[in-house]
């Protein structure tokens, strides 16, 4: 693993995504922060990416729990197997 402080746009995009899930290292974050000082498009992208994370949090969206999905699928399968359709 290399500790590069200057990263390219591709790497910056990746780090920026990882930041949204709090899975980036400190070195990566420093690299990203330096990159966006010089790179307008990445700065813009990072801003929107952060905003997306905020919106997703704000909406408090939730998926249906897996076990409920399975139960539902079973219900449909049973109904279909009765063949009344």
């Amino acid at each position, binding site marked *: 693993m290399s500790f590069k402080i200057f990263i390219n746009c591709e790497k910056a995009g*990746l780090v920026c*995504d990882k930041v949204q899930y709090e899975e980036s290292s400190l070195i990566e974050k420093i690299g990203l922060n330096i990159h966006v000082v010089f790179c307008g498009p990445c700065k813009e992208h990072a801003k*929107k990416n952060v905003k*997306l994370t905020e*919106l997703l949090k704000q909406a408090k969206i*939730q998926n249906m729990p897996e076990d409920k999905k399975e139960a*539902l699928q079973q219900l449909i399968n049973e109904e279909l197997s009765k063949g009344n359709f």
Partner: protein
Amino acid sequence: MPSKQIDPTQWVKRYSDYLFNYTITRVSDREVAQDLISETFLAGLKSMKNFQGKASERTWLIAILKRKIIDHYRKINSKKGKAEVRINYREDDGEGDWMEERVADPFDKTAEDVIENTELGDAIYNCLNKLPERQAEIFKLKTIDGQETETICNAYNITASNLWVIIHRARTAMVECMEKNWL
């Protein structure tokens, strides 16, 4: 031949998250939401032969679900007593803070937030619906369920860098889709 096909075996996989979110922002009770969706799918199965393929499967299911939600509210309203008037006038102490009491209804304070969040949730799911199926699945697992990278990689048999590429594509598409109205 209908222009759009119907396939109930895929309903749970394709629409359950969307329908669940749609319902929960409107009835705010997980159990009730779950029941309403079961009822919706069953009603869908029963009226499948009436599906004309004019709308998409999802639109059609939402139309059924909307009716179920309205029915649900009708039912609980008929159980409740009639309109309740809430006036907090203390007769023995009429000089209280009557002015302040009338300034703001604390129960109303969140109404706007709720409406906005309902719309936001719908917008997010509409955009999710435009993503390729696998991309949307992985994005939802990671972002909404908050699953570990490793867990998802194992389940889908992909490497971590595969996963981040998928997440990146999904996020870029989401930003593009949400940009106009929300970002």
